[in-house]
């Protein structure tokens, strides 16, 4: 039995043994290239760089690109109008037009060349057809000289009927210089961006590491054995704080479960030794000293009863452990609490009557709950049991139920001796028996079970002074329909989720 209980405990809170049993293992920072912080920062640099690049390309396109397109459009328009002139006025008309345009070219950027089929110049401001011009391309860039200074022109070729060729272009030196200027500036800008990005990445990596440092340090301390450690919460309420809070909750729970296991072991050692010893000595005594078969039978029967008592305690303990481990979530279903309360009152009314206690029920006609019906039955029965056990004759025990701000509150109030406020905090501990109750039968597990049931349902057990007497209130957060509430969190492996029955 002891082994089983311990085994169950180990199953509830699995704990890997620390890597080195001697010194706590402080996690070294991962190798540089494997650092998650670095990856995080690298993503940052990438995004930053890509954004900057996109911006640069956009700017370039909007400035230098626009200029280029404007030039090309002007040249094309020029070509087209010249072609029209050729059609209208023939060669002579075209020559005159070209000379005119040159004479009126205040901007001093136009280039024209009209050559005959033998590529001899006919009109325009170029001396000869440029030999470097490839014959297959329409557009080209042509180096020109302006008053001794090297310059650049963009030219377009147009074939006229009759074998004549027309070259029209613009001096784009200024634009070329602008383009170079812009390109250079953007390249430098990208370099600056890279440097800034790397700096930012270092900062981000630091932030990342710092945010995780707390959690890792606490986790390290805990795996070294110090379960009292908790992750520090910065108070900003951000995602890291939420993570820390969740981890702290988990640690609380593990701590509680481990305490529970410890308690169970202690309890088994102390509180159960008595009835087992008693049964043993009775049997031994009977074996040695019983004279008649009747005596033997009587002793055996009493020993059996003692052992039954021990079994009952174990069953209760295991039940509580099961409930606390959340294994019972699978039995949640919608049902009406009102008839359950009525049935319990009916069951205990006979006992109450016998002891001269008045048992009253106050509940709404219908109280829809999504909970574990059998567990609630046992929990409320435990409370009623206690109330009846400790009520004086002529007293009143009140069982009432109501829904307050989304939580169901089931309370059992008696007018017995109550629990002194000093003991109330510990009353729901396993095997706890207050002074007043020390001599009444029971193992002190009733309230522990009620509390476990309350916690399983996301609620609590509150013990208050009924002035005089005890008022035990069982609060449950399970009134809403499951769809509205959202499904319960991570269910233990293997638990079947029953489809909720139709609303009764």
């Amino acid at each position, binding site marked *: 039995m002891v082994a089983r209980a311990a085994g169950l405990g180990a199953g509830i809170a699995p704990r890997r043994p620390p890597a080195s049993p001697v010194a706590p293992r402080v996690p070294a920072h991962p190798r540089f290239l494997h650092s998650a912080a670095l990856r995080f920062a690298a993503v940052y640099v990438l995004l930053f760089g890509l954004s900057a690049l996109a911006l640069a390309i956009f700017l370039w396109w909007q400035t230098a690109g626009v200029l280029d397109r404007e030039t090309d459009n002007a040249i094309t328009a020029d070509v087209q109008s010249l072609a029209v002139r050729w059609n209208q006025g023939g060669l002579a008309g075209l020559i005159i037009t070209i000379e005119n345009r040159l004479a009126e070219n205040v901007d001093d950027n136009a280039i024209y060349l009209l050559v005959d089929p033998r590529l001899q110049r006919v009109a325009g401001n170029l001396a000869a057809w440029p030999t470097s011009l490839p014959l297959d391309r329409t557009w080209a860039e042509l180096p020109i000289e302006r008053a001794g200074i090297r310059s650049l022109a963009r030219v377009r070729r147009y074939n006229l009927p009759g074998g004549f060729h027309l070259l029209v272009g613009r001096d784009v030196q200024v634009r070329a210089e602008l383009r170079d200027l812009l390109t250079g500036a953007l390249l430098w800008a990208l370099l600056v961006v890279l440097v800034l990005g790397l700096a930012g990445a270092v900062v981000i990596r630091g932030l990342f590491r710092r945010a995780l440092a707390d959690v890792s340090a606490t986790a390290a301390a805990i795996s070294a054995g110090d379960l009292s450690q908790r992750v520090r919460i910065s108070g900003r309420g951000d995602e890291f704080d939420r993570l820390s809070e969740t981890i702290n909750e988990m640690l609380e729970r593990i701590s509680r479960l481990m305490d529970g296991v410890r308690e169970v072991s202690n309890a088994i050692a102390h509180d159960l030794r008595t009835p087992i010893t008693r049964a043993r000595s009775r049997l031994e005594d009977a074996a040695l000293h019983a004279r008649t078969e009747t005596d033997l039978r009587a002793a055996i029967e009493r020993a059996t009863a003692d052992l039954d008592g021990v079994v009952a305690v174990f069953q209760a303990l295991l*039940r509580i452990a099961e409930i606390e481990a959340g294994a019972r979530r699978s039995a949640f279903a919608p049902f009406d609490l009102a008839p359950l309360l009525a049935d319990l009152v009916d069951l205990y009314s006979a*006992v109450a009557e016998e002891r001269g206690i008045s048992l009253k029920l106050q509940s709404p006609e219908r109280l829809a709950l999504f909970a574990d019906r059998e567990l609630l*039955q046992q929990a409320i029965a435990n409370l009623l049991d206690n109330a009846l056990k400790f009520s004086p004759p002529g007293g009143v025990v009140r069982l009432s139920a109501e829904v307050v701000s989304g939580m169901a509150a089931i309370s059992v109030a008696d007018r017995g001796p109550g629990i002194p406020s000093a003991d109330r905090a510990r009353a729901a501990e396993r095997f706890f028996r207050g002074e007043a109750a020390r001599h009444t039968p029971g193992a002190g597990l009733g309230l522990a079970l009620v509390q476990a049931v309350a916690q399983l349902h996301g609620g609590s057990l509150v013990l208050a002074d009924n002035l005089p007497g005890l008022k035990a209130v069982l609060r449950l957060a399970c009134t809403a329909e499951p769809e509205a509430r959202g499904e319960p969190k991570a269910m233990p492996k293997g638990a079947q989720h029953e489809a909720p029955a139709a609303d009764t």
Partner: protein
Amino acid sequence: MRILVVEDDKDVAGFVVKGLRESGHVVEHADNGRDGLFLAASEPFDAIILDRMLPGGIDGLRILETLRSQHNTVPVLFLSALGQVDDRVLGLKAGGDDYLTKPFAFAELLARVEALTRRGKGEGPVTKLAVGDLEMDLLSRSVRRAGQKIDLQPREFLLLEYLMRHAGQVVTRTMLLEGVWDYHFDPQTNVIDVHVSRLRQKVDKPFPTSLIHTVRNAGYMLRVDGQ
């Protein structure tokens, strides 16, 4: 009655088989799943007591599922180790008729097995129950003994009905809690005893003979005195 016990623990099996035989039943025993299934499928039994955990590759649940899939409706009572509460639901869902956790009192086992066999008799819808001079009309919800009307609270009526339906059989306190109040745990106080005693006040006390008898260390039985 012919009862099959499929249980691998030698001590428990020996205890149960001996007790059942002493109560006048014909008992077969198998100590592993395969033999158990073979016996259950090939010979007729009035009830089967089946342990959940069995060696031999086939466990209690599988045996039951196999039997039910062969349309074998023999009543089955499951035994299981301490503390596996959800197993009860699974066992009943698979087609089991009743469930007991170990350790159990033999009287409890005997009472439940005998109740199981009565259940399987298929009497059809009943409107009247009668034991001795006690008559219960289920339609009008009225009870008469020796012609005299007895006034009963609704729950008392249900309690008496349960006792009458199991007339001549031992009915344990746990059975009453489950059958009448739908309550599945062991209460600390003797609630059942108080209810039965109140029922006796109305059904037995005003009359010369008692029908409701206490069976020591087991429970209660409704029968005509002297039987």
